[in-house]
């Protein structure tokens, strides 16, 4: 996959940070205003997809490879599960909001909701890396038949 024209590259260079920051904003204020982990994660994945479309696949894969995306995907799923399991020890039930019980915090503040903020961040990272991986799998990899007759999946060399 090659990059696109100079206009697209320039606009992407200006816009990418704002898309990324809007996703982060939606994630960390998900318990105060509309938004949350899922929508914020999708928007963060959008910023990386925009980079891949505009600058080509090498640009993104060299900075944010599929290996990192896999690790982020698995570890954030694990964090969400651990947050739920820790409720057994502290609150007595699965997914008890023990942090909010113990440190109630100020109402309507960023840290006032305990576990919900951590869960939102974990889900956001998970959705972002998952959608980025889906995009890489669907658009960069391609099925070809080799000379020995075995079908295998390669990263496509150039765009039709």
């Amino acid at each position, binding site marked *: 996959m090659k990059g696109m024209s100079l206009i697209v590259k320039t606009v992407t260079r200006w816009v990418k940070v704002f898309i990324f920051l809007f996703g982060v904003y939606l994630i960390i204020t998900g*318990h105060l205003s509309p938004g949350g982990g899922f929508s914020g994660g999708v928007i963060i994945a959008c910023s990386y*997809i925009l980079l891949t479309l505009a600058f080509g696949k090498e640009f993104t894969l060299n900075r944010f490879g599929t290996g990192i995306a*896999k690790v982020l995907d698995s570890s954030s799923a694990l964090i969400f599960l651990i947050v739920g399991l820790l409720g057994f020890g502290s609150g007595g039930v699965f997914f008890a909001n023990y942090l909010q019980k113990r440190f109630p915090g100020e109402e*309507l503040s960023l840290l006032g909701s305990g576990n*919900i903020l951590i869960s939102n961040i974990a889900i956001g990272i998970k959705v972002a890396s998952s959608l980025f*991986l889906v*995009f890489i799998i669907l658009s960069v990899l391609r099925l070809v038949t080799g000379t020995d007759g075995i079908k295998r999946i390669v990263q496509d060399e150039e*765009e039709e």
Partner: protein
Amino acid sequence: MEIDIIIFVLLVFMAIAALIAVETKNLLSSVISLGAVGFGLSMAFLFLRAPDLAIVQIAVEVVLLIFLIRATISRDTIPETGRIRWWGLAFVLLLMAGVLVFGYFAFHDLGNFGEPIISAVKSTPSNLYLREGLEKTGAANIVTSIILDYRAYDTLGEATVLFTAIIGALAILRSRTKTDKGERKK
């Protein structure tokens, strides 16, 4: 009453766009009509006062449009040929007529639009969440307090579904294959 007209116009727009998406021959115009359905749905959510759903719908719709356009833009489109099976069409029309008649009688006795019956009883869970959500969870956004606190177990299930789907896709579409003898092959 005003919101009814807006929702009605949006629903007609979405139905027309969905018909175009099904009936058109070109795959790319079909995908774009599908995008119109999604954006109409997002606006409908916004007018029904569900901003969380509207944000999710519009973000997922953009990503889905990119995926589908990239998947279809380089393919040769094969126009489908074939004749219409009239008895099948008649069966579908009869079924739809039956569902419409059933729906008319089923929804006849329900309450007005925007006034759910369940909110009339004080002790139902939905009223409980609205009253005690903020002080019990600390989240001002009631949707977040439900999906990540009261019903976090469901969210764990959704995360598991996403995780399993990614693992399956990566396992099937991995770039490195194994031969019969078990040695890794590039």
